[in-house]
């Protein structure tokens, strides 16, 4: 489903070129549950951003469900982020002034669903993460675990091909973290494809496959 061949990414800051990725080959199949590990600066986030279509590679090919992503225009990429990718961030990235319901609703607004459709879907999603009774609360009125559950619901909104999570438990206490891990496992069991960046062996131990990155290269777990 996702195939990356010979991908490099070079950042130019001033006169210094930083090679964040140095030739990545990676395959992710449908209903894979993988974790990406590596020390900071190893290129985890860069890889994640490129898979998530937030960034484009300097070189190499990226196929997502048969589409050559590198060749798409910004509007098409926005559509892909909207409908094929679900992001879960370490710091949740919820809109602080919007309620849980409204936060989950945003991708559906961009998709162009009618209000009726959005309402039904949003309630269904909040039900899945067990927050239906808190949907009128703003992020500041929720605990960290609850906020992360809202953002998982938001990531699932348009039924994406892959869920990309960047240190989803990094800002959580161990109890909430464990709950979040269970949610991911549960989603995997339901057929979702999930990639998680993490330092946390409690998560990586639960995944099917661990990809280890070092200095912009995959040192372990790249093949299917």
């Amino acid at each position: 489903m996702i195939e990356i061949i010979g991908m490099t990414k070079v950042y130019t800051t001033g006169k210094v070129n930083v090679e964040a990725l140095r030739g990545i080959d990676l395959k992710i199949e449908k209903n894979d549950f993988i974790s990406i590990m590596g020390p900071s600066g190893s290129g985890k986030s860069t890889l994640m951003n490129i898979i998530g279509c937030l960034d484009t590679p300097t070189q190499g090919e990226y196929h997502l469900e048969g589409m050559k992503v590198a060749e798409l225009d910004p509007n098409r990429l926005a559509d892909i982020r909207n409908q094929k990718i679900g992001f879960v961030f370490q710091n949740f990235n919820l809109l602080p002034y919007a309620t849980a319901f409204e936060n989950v609703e945003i991708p559906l607004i961009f998709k162009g669903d009618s209000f009726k459709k959005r309402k039904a879907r949003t309630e269904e999603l909040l039900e899945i993460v067990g927050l239906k009774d808190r949907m009128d609360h703003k992020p500041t009125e929720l605990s960290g675990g609850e906020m992360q559950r809202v953002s998982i619901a938001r990531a699932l909104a348009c039924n994406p091909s892959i869920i990309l999570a960047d240190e989803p438990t990094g800002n959580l206490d161990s109890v909430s973290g464990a709950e979040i891990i269970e949610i991911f496992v549960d989603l995997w069991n339901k057929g979702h494809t999930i990639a998680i960046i993490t330092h946390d062996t409690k998560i990586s131990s639960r995944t099917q496959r661990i990809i280890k990155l070092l200095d912009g290269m995959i040192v372990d777990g790249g093949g299917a």
Partner: protein
Amino acid sequence: MKGFLFFRLFLRDLKKQRKKITLTTLAIAWGTFSIVMLLAFGEGLKNQMSKANSGLGKGICIMWGGQTTIPYQGLGKGRRIRFTEEDVELLKSRIPEIENVGGEYNRWEIAMTYGKKTLTERVNGLYPCYEEMRSHYPEKGGRFINDLDLKYKRRVVFLGNELKERLMGNEKNVVGKTIIINSIPFTVIGVMREKLQMGAYGGMDEDKVSIPATTFKAIWGYTYFNNLVYQPKDPEKAEQVEKEVYKVLGAKHKFDPEDERALGIWDVINQAKEMNKVFLGISIFLGIIGGMTLLIAGVGVANIMFAAVKQRTREIGIKMALGGKRKDIMSQFILESLMIAFFGGGAGIVFTVIIVRILQAIPIQSEGLQFLGKPTISWDVMAVTIVILGLVGLLSGFFPSRKAAVVNPVESLRYE
């Protein structure tokens, strides 16, 4: 829900930048006030001027006899052309495009007496069509010269309102009173309603005394009219009618229709048209001045929106990650600045309407102020203002929003 979210976002922003937004909204209101006020004064001036212009007459041409300058059919140049009643009848019957035509006699330095007061003034001999053509409307209780006055050569007189003041003082109900003109008693049938008059020939109408043309002729034995006044049916065709007049009168008086000096025609219609052009120019000028003021306010709005883009960098990144397109990101900022523009603009318009109402309610005595002191808010003014406000709002939102649209989502998600 999208609109609702948008509104909440706006309110949040309002709280964060309360002082700035309040000041900018005030600036927009002030800009709107100045633009509407300027245009309203322009409009009022134009209205007063066109009213004053029609004080002389609406859609008329005034014609004098001239002198030929081109020899024609064996006749030399330098002949005087003068009109009689025959010419009036001829124009009436030969040019169907003429709605109304009438001649007038006048004579200066005629003594007129009321009680112990005697004045020496000008007297006009007129036809009933002058009431409409030359705006000789009577005050309540009076009337203008009619057909029976003409037929019976009645000794009746219609007074200019200023002259009536001078001759009869503040006396009210002067209709039916007798004044002596040239040693002949005349009955007053009406006093002219006060009017604004700009163009004039032989003095202002308010200073004139009008009697039936036939009575005039019987007293002073005039053969020739001093001038004619005609009114084309369609004001747009005044020039065509003028050519016809040259042809018809040229055939009768034997002058070349190309001989422009044979007749003198004052085209009041064309003059009014020219004046409208001048006023359009003035309005555009005033609009530009007002627009400049508004533009400065627009810079303030843009400033706020630039700040908002920076403040919301992270939020823009989140929206992009969730599939927001360029237009989704941009439209928010444009809508917000439009909202500020129209909110401020609305306040400015309301304020202006109040001021204009107050100004209109103040009675004006001075003649100069009669032209300036009547600001009018017309639909045109409103339309122009709203268009300019829209443009200012759009522009002051567009540039900041473009900055928002090129935000790099990767970096903005890291932005604190």
